[in-house]
């Protein structure tokens, strides 16, 4: 078979896979729409009401903690294996367009790590399925009735994901150059589409439990599966998880690069892993920067769906958790910035920007301190008496939303500034309008920051309900600064004179910043999962099916923190094992010399 015929056959296969994938994506509508229960006809049974006897306890183990651990571990792994192919495809595309083989090699190395994690994802997923069906049979029975044919679609998608993933990985070297590269990237596109759909389907179940739709107030199924899927919180959750996955996946592979950087012996490999670590950090930041805004949207939709649920999160028992969240996000931003500042040492021109680092550090640390300042303080009665209340007169105002909105937006803006400084540190603009461009960038930062602060001050002067509204212009401002400065720099430094970047010229200490990111991200994801689940309070399905198990309470922050730490430690151990596995795959034993050769020697 000549190359053209082979190519045609391959294209046909890709088309066939695409058609099957398309059918799978259309299937939900076909199955779900046809499955609508006709109102008024038939007997609509309400949701079951499980009694204490309906919950099985195995060997005195806490059922909830077991399911919590398995679900969180599955989510960690799934987030990683879904995110990696996404940015791998972007890197592969960059490599194909720029014809720089380094990108391709790095993308392949990222995939290798992801492949090792995939089997564990399926394994833990299987364990989770067994645990929930065994320990919460009434709830799972009800969810199965609500989502009917979707369960089958989920299974088909999972199979599709596995097939696409293996084809994508194992065809990498066979489809590396020319037109074949584009065919390979098409497989990557299908893989990502299937993976995202898989995540959206899983999200439908989780969000349905928070904001049920397609059922009446008694839980009787009155709508289609599509109506249950498209519940009020589904899309905000989809977006939030999609962005978080990218940031998380970037942070994990960044840790891998840092670990390799610290382990390898040659300068060449150190340079490779330094570059890999830098790219991972950029991916993590790109995923992370819009994440708080996706969080705002999710929270706004929660408030719109149920004001009670929103208040439970932000002003009720869970309010303190957002202080821990601030600590975690503060750690992530400090770690990411510190790494970028260290990166200025990679080029000789980087020293030009070094004097500005201290100002950025002041803003980031200042913002961090504002963010962790609580509104109400934990005080003894004597302290309350001495202070004249639970709110400190000067620091108290820093505990409410307007101050925190200013802080988080400025932290994001200045994190982008750190990235922009590193980008510029190896380039000299040659366009005639470079001075004007720089002036415009400075103006954007200045006006933007003033607007963020101004909108925050306005937030103090309005009733609580409008405070959240005041955050919208702040968000828009932050995004505008990032987008416009990015566009200006792109055009200003097109064709710029590039100065040498000394990859590998990084301190050992800087690499530890890349370990801070995944540790904080993992803990943060588990914390957010705990908050999201707790919003349902004592309901399996909010307002529809009560949780009557012995563990229908929201645990204390301390108890939750302990469980989260144990899950994170287990995940870290697993990830280290995965790193070791992918390293093992690249290790070759040197062929022992035969006796004859030994004699020759």
């Amino acid at each position, binding site marked *: 078979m000549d190359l053209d015929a082979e190519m045609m056959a391959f294209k046909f296969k890709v088309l066939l896979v695409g058609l099957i994938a398309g059918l799978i994506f259309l299937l939900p509508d076909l199955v779900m729409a046809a499955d609508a229960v006709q*109102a008024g006809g038939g007997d609509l049974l309400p949701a079951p009401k499980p009694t204490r006897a309906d919950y099985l306890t195995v060997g005195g183990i806490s059922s909830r903690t077991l399911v919590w651990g398995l679900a969180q571990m599955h989510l960690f792994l799934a987030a990683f294996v879904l995110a990696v192919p996404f940015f791998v495809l972007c890197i592969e595309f960059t490599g194909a367009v720029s014809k720089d083989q380094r990108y391709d090699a790095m993308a392949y190395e990222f995939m290798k790590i992801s492949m090792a994690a995939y089997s564990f994802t399926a394994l833990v997923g299987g364990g989770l399925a067994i645990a929930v069906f065994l320990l919460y049979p009434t709830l799972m029975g009800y969810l199965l009735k609500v989502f009917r044919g979707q369960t089958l679609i989920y299974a088909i998608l999972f199979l599709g994901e596995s097939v696409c993933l293996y084809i994508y990985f194992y065809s990498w070297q066979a489809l590396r150059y020319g037109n074949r590269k584009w065919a390979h990237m098409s497989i990557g596109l299908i893989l990502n589409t299937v993976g995202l759909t898989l995540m959206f389907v899983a999200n439908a179940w989780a969000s349905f439990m928070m904001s049920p739709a397609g059922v009446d107030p008694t839980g009787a199924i009155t709508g289609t599966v599509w109506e249950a899927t498209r519940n009020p919180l589904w899309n905000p959750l989809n977006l939030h998880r999609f962005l978080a996955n990218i940031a998380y996946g970037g942070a994990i592979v960044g840790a891998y690069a840092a670990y390799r950087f610290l382990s390898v012996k040659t300068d060449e490999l150190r340079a490779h892993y330094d570059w890999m670590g830098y790219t991972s950090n950029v991916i993590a930041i790109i995923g992370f920067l819009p994440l708080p805004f996706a969080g705002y949207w999710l929270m706004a939709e929660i408030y719109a769906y149920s004001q009670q649920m929103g208040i439970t999160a932000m002003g009720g028992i869970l309010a303190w958790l957002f202080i821990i969240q601030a600590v975690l996000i503060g750690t992530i931003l400090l770690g990411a910035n510190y790494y970028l500042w260290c990166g200025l040492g990679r080029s000789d021109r980087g020293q030009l920007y070094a004097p500005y680092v201290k100002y950025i550090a002041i803003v980031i640390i200042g913002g961090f301190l504002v963010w962790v300042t609580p509104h109400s303080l934990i005080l003894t009665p004597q302290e309350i008496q001495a202070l004249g209340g639970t709110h400190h007169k000067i620091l108290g105002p820093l505990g409410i939303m307007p101050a925190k909105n200013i802080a988080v937006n400025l932290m994001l803006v200045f994190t982008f500034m750190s990235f922009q400084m590193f980008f510029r540190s190896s380039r000299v603009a040659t366009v005639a309008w470079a001075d004007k461009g720089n002036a415009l960038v400075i103006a954007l930062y200045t006006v933007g920051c003033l607007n963020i602060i101004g909108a925050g001050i306005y937030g103090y002067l309005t009733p609580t309900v409008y405070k959240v509204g005041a955050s919208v212009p702040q968000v828009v401002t932050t995004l505008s600064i990032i987008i416009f400065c990015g566009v200006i720099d792109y055009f200003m430094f097109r064709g710029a004179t590039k100065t040498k970047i000394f990859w590998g010229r990084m301190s050992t200490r800087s690499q530890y910043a890349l370990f801070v990111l995944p540790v904080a991200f993992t803990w943060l994801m588990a914390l957010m999962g705990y908050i999201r689940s707790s919003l349902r309070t*004592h309901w399996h399905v909010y307002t529809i099916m009560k949780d009557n198990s012995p563990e*229908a309470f929201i*645990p204390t922050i*301390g108890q939750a*923190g*302990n469980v989260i730490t144990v899950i994170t430690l287990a995940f870290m151990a697993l990830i280290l094992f995965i790193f070791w596995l992918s390293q093992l795959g690249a290790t070759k034993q040197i062929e022992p010399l035969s006796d004859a050769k030994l004699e020759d020697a």
Partner: protein
Amino acid sequence: MTLLRVLVFSTSILLVYTLFANILPQVQSNPPAEEEPPVAGDLDQAGQIAWGEKLFKGKGTCTLCHNDLGRAPNLLAMDLNTVFADRLKDSRYDGAAKGLDGAKAIEAYIHESMISPSAYVVAGFGKKGSSDTVSPMPVISGPPISLSEAESNAVVAFLQDKGGFEVTVPLPSGGGDSAASSPDVTEEDGPAETAEAALEKFNCVACHDLLGSGGDVGPQLAGIGKRMSVAEIQTSILTPNAKIAEGFEPDTMPPDYKEQLRVSELQLIVDYLSTLAEPEVAQ
């Protein structure tokens, strides 16, 4: 050695987070305890008011929004005597209390705002984008709050008393409050398959003039589909006191149909009622 350093470093960070989580205030949130309602006859009006306050601040979760943060009117800090009277005078108000006077009007207004919060939304407190036509407040008789009729009455009593009005809600009389109980329908009866069977099964015909029964305890329902929307008919069945027809007393219709009716039966009745023809006018 590198692996060990990385492990120690990462674990140290984790321990800092764990420590921080453990030094914050530790509160466990338990599901609301199922409290037994006061025994009928044990409660005087003062007791009912105190019970209402307890519900307002506890099971009813009213203070979650009705506080000084501006999400809902801060009822505990307001002069309810003036506020409620002003609300009833509002030109936008067209609810159940219209046409009633004195404390009875206040009772109807408070009750309606709990059962049907969107019937009248105080300016500035509506859902975003609804121009104050949709309230963010949940229906307190439905989940997750699920106050019973007696509990709702107790909250009304507390607010009436707080505003300096005469308390007009009846004391709980055990079982079905002051309203009649719905007929005892058991699961063994099976679901009604036609609207006529459903109307017979739930004894609607005893009070309303339906299927030629001639009942006159409840309002005439012929032509109801032109006067009320499907949703309003449904609400009137499930929450009879949400809107009382002119000339009829509240607490007459059984309040527990929402527990007795199956969804399919409710649908049959609502469909039937919404298509009932107008009464023939005598020549």
